[in-house]
């Protein structure tokens, strides 16, 4: 199973000092957090993509390449890549290039973005969000899988005789996740292609997350990619840890109470009850996280949001240290102990996809069993 960090990349004032980091400091902090992730034995670092303040990560592949140059094992990913407003041609080229630079240590998570004004800045309309995600991603698959593409669609200039360069590393496109909180169409999309499904989870109750994952799993099986329990699932979560629960709460409460995403609404206690946020000891985080698998089934990737609520960098690095040294080793052991042999431990990686060979379903634009296939199977 893979464990890692995902960062939104928000510039948030530290409410205890009133100090707001500069964009430069925040970018450097995200890099330091990613490097720390590898140092303490985590597997993945995923960055957000945003094009509006107070967020800094507008150039994910630039940043991930910089991190790749300073790491050896860390898998670089996104949370999320805006498939709606980013030209799929640029996604195809940028991430193939990143594959080459990083030696294949790349996967991506597609997301739509929920900020209305961002869409028109890129010539798009949020009301077409789902349709954009569907059309753009299908084109992206073709660009990575067909050397020469002739294409016409609703939202982009047609392509005639177009070759996206460089071609994916070893002719093998990166593995893709689709992130969605509430949109069932996106769970359906992930299932159709046999891609991974990631539920951000951090602002939702586990019952809701479990319903979305359950839908994806059933449809994954429906499309012939394997049994429902073999579908590739990732979850988000967030925590703040200290030696005792009281100490963790004492330190984190002013951050929670004032954070733009948490504060001025429910109490810390109400929010930790309702969502994955765990503020307490490493043991509490372990127990809470293991419980996710009871709700969504055995899964393959757990990402934690640790640089939230305006916490200063030194505190975040210390939190990542505790996560990597004390929490994740236990989680690895316990998650594998409960996992049936038929359920994959890890999501597909570049190495595993290359090993499957060029005839594997991963290399098909549309690997799903079609309605015609299903009818034929029923007819026996």
């Amino acid at each position, binding site marked *: 199973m893979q464990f890692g960090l995902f960062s939104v990349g928000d510039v948030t004032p530290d409410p205890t000092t009133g100090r707001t980091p500069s964009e430069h400091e925040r970018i450097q902090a995200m890099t330091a957090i990613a490097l720390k992730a590898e140092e303490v034995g985590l597997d993945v670092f995923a960055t957000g993509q945003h094009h509006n303040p107070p967020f800094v990560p507008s150039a994910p592949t630039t940043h991930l390449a910089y991190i790749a140059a300073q790491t050896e094992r860390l898998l670089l990913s996104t949370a999320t890549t805006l498939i709606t407003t980013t030209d799929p041609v640029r996604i195809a080229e940028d991430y193939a290039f990143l594959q080459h630079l990083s030696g294949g240590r790349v996967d991506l998570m597609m997301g739509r973005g929920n900020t209305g004004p961002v869409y028109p800045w890129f010539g798009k309309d949020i009301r077409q969000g*789902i*349709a954009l995600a*569907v*059309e753009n991603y*299908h*084109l992206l698959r073709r660009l990575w899988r067909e050397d020469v593409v002739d294409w*016409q*669609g*609703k939202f982009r200039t047609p392509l005639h005789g177009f070759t996206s360069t460089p071609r994916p590393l070893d002719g093998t496109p990166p593995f893709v996740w689709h992130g969605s909180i*509430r949109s*069932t*169409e996106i*769970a*359906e*999309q992930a*299932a*159709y292609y046999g891609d991974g499904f990631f539920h951000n989870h951090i*602002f*939702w*109750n586990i019952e*809701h997350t479990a*319903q*979305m994952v359950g*839908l994806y799993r059933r*449809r994954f099986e429906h*499309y012939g990619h394997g049994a429902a329990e073999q579908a590739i699932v990732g979850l988000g979560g967030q925590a703040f840890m200290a030696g005792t629960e009281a100490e963790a709460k004492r330190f984190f409460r002013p951050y929670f109470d004032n954070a733009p995403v948490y504060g*001025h*609404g*429910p109490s810390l206690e*109400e*929010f930790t009850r*309702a*969502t994955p946020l765990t503020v307490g000891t490493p043991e509490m985080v372990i127990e809470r996280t293991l419980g996710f698998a009871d709700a969504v089934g055995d899964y393959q990737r757990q990402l934690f949001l640790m640089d939230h609520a305006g916490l200063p960098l030194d505190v975040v690095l210390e939190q990542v240290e505790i996560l990597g040294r004390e929490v994740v080793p236990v989680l690895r052991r316990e998650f594998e102990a409960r996992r049936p042999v038929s359920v994959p431990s890890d999501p597909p990686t570049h190495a595993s996809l290359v090993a499957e060979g060029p005839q594997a379903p991963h290399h098909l634009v549309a690997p*799903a069993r*079609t*309605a015609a296939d299903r009818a034929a199977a029923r007819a026996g």
Partner: protein
Amino acid sequence: MTRRIVVVTAGLSNPSSTRLLADRIADAVTTQVSARGERAEVEVVELRELAQDLATTMTTGGMPTPRVAQARDLVASADGLVAVTPVFTASYSGLFKMFVDVLDTDALNGVPVVVAATAGTSRHQLVLDHALRPLFTYLRAVVVPTGVFAATEDFGGGESDRLGRRIAQAAAELASLVVAETGAVGGFVPREDDLAAPRRRSSGNGVDEDVTDFETLLGGLGQ
């Protein structure tokens, strides 16, 4: 067949004149449904008890608290709705609107609704037609022609009891719609051809498992 009547009331004090009016309308609806040979079951959503839950739901990106989820289920499964609010600053109260704002926009499709309001003076009575009626029309509810407005002086009643007559009138209009059959006979007309078929309703709780097949989504874009 039992018809489920849900009463949403936004009074703040206890006892509140808004709740008094809500109860009178609910009783009248029960009587009118019974008069049509059916049984009515009334459930009351006191919005004052949900005030903090509504604020929490608003500040957590729409994740409903368990109590908000329960209230949404009630409304989305109602056969008829009675909505009563005090008039605050020339409109429905903020608490009342917060509740309407957490409802799914498909929660009240085609549902018969009585709108009612209380105020200190009858000068506010157009709130029914300028604020409440368009609100529920937006939600595709069927607002009955008679709204019920009660200023403080109306609770005096007197011999004419105009308020009582108005309540009975609104209740009768609601009861007629609540007991009426809707749509085609099941299985007789294929659903997609049945132009009179009611729109599906949703509480907004939980995930809609009825997804559009992805091949259809892709095909719709010509891919």
